[in-house]
């Protein structure tokens, strides 16, 4: 399915990755029950594409995203970033990797530290990566805030998360992810907590960012329609297995796997007399 094609330029390659969780053993339980979140998945993400990972809750889609930014380690298998395995990275190399792969989290109400101002939050990656001087950093922050649609940047600079709406907070979270100009961003359901009219504007923003910076995105979602709207290619994940990978159009028009077919059938819509 996901054979490595030497002609294509893959930024991220996932090879046979398995992730098992061991929940705390129950005192009286006879067996240690383990949860297989991912079961030997293979996946390659091309440089410059928006890759959609679609699955329902508990399918392993979020785990995949967390593995790719090294918030967690795979139980088995390899993850290559620019042909280099990320599991072996340490010290300065790991820090370098951190500046190249970023993440946008689901809940904008949880992903910003309430005690830090917007400027402090967005500036943090620059500070820990030791990029620029204090003056250039604050210029960069203002510029990035404006890029993500928080204009004028100065007006948001000294505000705090609780003074912003959900949509604005998520824009701040996006600004924090793009401020170091990473090559790769994992966006884990970035709009599932937001209203539809706000969500669609964020999709537009993600597209603009992709075009301006030429970043590669992994877009994780439970919403097939959103993935089709935003992504070049889509993988459908179900119970820890990738069941189908194809271009967005082909997945929707000619789904092959029964699970994909089922997903398409139950998508809510209102156009054709449903």
């Amino acid at each position, binding site marked *: 399915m996901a054979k490595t094609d030497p002609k294509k330029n893959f930024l991220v390659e996932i090879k046979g990755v398995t992730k098992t969780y061991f929940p705390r053993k129950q005192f009286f339980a006879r067996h240690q029950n383990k949860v297989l979140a991912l079961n030997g998945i293979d996946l390659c993400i091309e440089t410059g594409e928006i890759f959609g990972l679609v699955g329902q809750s508990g399918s392993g889609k979020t785990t995949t995203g967390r593995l790719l930014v090294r918030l967690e380690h795979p139980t088995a298998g390899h993850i290559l970033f620019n042909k280099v395995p990320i599991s072996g990275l340490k010290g300065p190399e790991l*820090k370098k990797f951190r500046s190249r792969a970023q993440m946008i989290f689901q809940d904008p109400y*949880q*992903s910003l*530290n309430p*005690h830090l101002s917007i400027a402090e939050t967005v500036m943090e990656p620059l500070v*820990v990566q030791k990029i620029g001087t204090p003056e250039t950093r604050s210029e960069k922050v203002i510029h990035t805030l404006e890029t993500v649609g928080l204009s004028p940047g100065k007006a948001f600079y*000294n505000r705090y998360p*609780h003074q912003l709406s959900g949509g604005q907070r998520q824009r701040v979270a996006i600004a924090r992810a793009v401020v170091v100009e990473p090559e790769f961003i994992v966006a884990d359901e970035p709009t599932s907590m937001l209203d539809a009219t706000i969500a669609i504007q964020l999709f537009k923003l993600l597209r603009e960012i992709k075009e301006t910076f030429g970043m590669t995105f992994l877009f994780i979602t439970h919403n097939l329609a959103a993935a089709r709207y935003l992504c070049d290619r889509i993988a459908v994940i179900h119970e820890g297995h990738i069941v189908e990978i194809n271009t967005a159009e082909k997945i929707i028009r000619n789904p092959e796997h029964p699970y994909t077919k089922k997903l398409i059938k139950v998508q809510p819509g209102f156009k054709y007399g449903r």
Partner: protein
Amino acid sequence: MLNKYSLQRFYKGWQIFIENPLGKTGVIILVVFMFMAIASFFVPLIGPMYDPMTGIDPDIRVSTGPSLTHWLGTDNVGRDLFAQLLEGAKVAFIVGLSAAFISIVIGTLVGMVAGYTGGLLDAFLMRTADIIMVLPSLVILLILASLFGQFNIWIIVFIIAIMRWPAVSRVIRSQTLSLKHRPFIEASRVAGASHLRIIFRHIMPNVLPLAFLYMTFRVTAAILVEAALSFLGFGDPSQVSWGMMLQWVWKSGHMFQAPYWLIPPGMCISLLTLAFYLLGRAMDEVLDPRLRKEGQA
């Protein structure tokens, strides 16, 4: 750390706090004792006779009741009881606040480190905390005092602090555990922040309010331990304190003869610890939104 957001939160918290009858009562009692503690600096200036430790009224040989020259009377060697009571307030504040402060500093640091790192270090720190927590602090102090003689007041403060951090560290640890997997901490990790940075910049501001809450309860405990120690005769003999005053009443055999000597320090101990306890309860309400009538905006 003390940025605009924290200050705004502090202000909001203070408003809820001061509207709370418990908080109000606590603050009023506390203010009275603060004035007493401040006054203690000026009393010896009136004359050497009013020094709480060395000032002896030359005309008095036995303990006397309240009079115009000695508002609360004198002890059996002619020292002014009111001056001693004021001095006792100062000492109570110093002992209570510094012991509580040291114990929350230790408790917060240990709690954050244990909760954040987890694993063996966590197990080691928490087992240590458990061991210290079950030790009876007063008994330990008594044993130490009888082994090494009477302690200087600062050593007493330090020992109380050492005995009292485990409860703080447990609470801070559990708070840290719940913070550790919050997305904003993970975002910081993804950005490449070091563990120290995450602990001090992201976790600490979020656990400090809880630490302050626990500090008020520690103050109460420290004052009581010091008073008990002094009353039993193991306090710092060079330092007047309320417990020490009680010890002198007892030792000089005035327990049942001089209520003007016995009652004020006893009342003061009860009232000051009550004040800090009320403060803690009121703070609990500020920090726990479920107890509030209205959610925070």
